[in-house]
């Protein structure tokens, strides 16, 4: 019982640890945390005719 509990806790800890770094490992952030890369890739949007509700 104690062994099962310890294994289960370890599994939970592993999942939590791997998920907290999920965002960090994401390829998206390679660009989206780099000022220089975004500046290079950015294209200004075309102006629309609509106006906000005000």
């Amino acid at each position, binding site marked *: 019982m104690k062994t099962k509990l310890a294994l289960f806790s370890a599994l939970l800890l592993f999942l939590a640890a791997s*998920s*907290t770094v*999920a*965002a*960090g*490992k*994401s*390829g*998206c*952030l390679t*660009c*989206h*945390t780099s*000022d220089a890369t*975004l*500046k290079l*890739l*950015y294209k*200004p*949007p*075309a*102006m*629309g*005719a*609509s*106006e*906000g*509700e*005000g």
Partner: protein
Amino acid sequence: MYKGYLVDKNLLAKDPHFAMGCKFCHKGDENGGTKESAHKNLVKRPSDNLKTCSMCHRQIADTYGKSLHYTTIGQRQGVMKRFSSEELKQFDEKVFQQSCRSCHASCGGCHVKAPAVGGISIGLIQGHKFIKKDEGKTCAFCHGGRVYPEYTGEYGGKPDVHYQKGMLCMDCHKKSDMHGDGTAYLSKQDVKDRPACTNCHRTLGQEAKLTTRAAHTRHTGKVTCYGCHSSAEYRQCSNCHLDTGSTAKPGFLLGLNPRDGKTLTTLRLIPTVRDSFKHAGIAMSNYDSLPNYWNTPAHNIRKRTDRTRSCDACHTDKAGFLTREGLFEKGSKANEGLIYNIKPIPIHK
């Protein structure tokens, strides 16, 4: 403007929203080697689908789904009486979803990335931090055509005294107004506990200054607070068309509130003209059933205005009062019903 897409890497370890990775909400291909391949099937605004946030914020997502900021149904309700039943169907199919409702606020639009207006957005409010509020970067954008710049004084008049005292939108428009209270209101006029001056200003009729007390006592129920305390011209929009938008100029108008037909208040010209929806093939058969001027809670309040300084500003000069000559050309026939013929103050011998 590229900085609007820059994520603050310091948030990643601290904020539980990042625990599941970017792809969990945004889809796309995080292993894509180019911008195009990485953005394939990208979901730019994941919170447009309330189920995204409701995984953790269930109660808020449930109530928000019925709130006016999400449904934007007030825009439909405001104009629908001008349509025949057939025209209303066309409006629902061709206009409301594509044009009016495109303006609805998602959770992210207030809490993560500033809403786009006319295709322009400042991007992430604080580096993809999930913030509670930042009125200057959220409310100010969608409501930046009229209310917000009138409030701050950027539109040309003096700032609203509440702004000068450090109050922003959420000081009066509470969280329940934004998130909703579970009721699917059809109009902001119906919202329970919506902001009212008397929520804070409760001493009407007890003022130390006798002239103030008399003025408040005499006008209560006849004139709204804005009628005397709106300090300057505000934005009047006209001639709106689906494909070209509208034009605007400053103006100050007093007339009868079209919602009750008896209270004098500040009016704002709403720019629906007879051929506003011509582009969608809608002629508005019942155009004249609604006026073009509506009561507006002008957000440019001052304690002292021309009208509080002198009774003559209204009773003799009739400054700002809606007149037959001042009604815009080819407007609704219902506009004439808003003209208030104010009388001079009688002199008692």
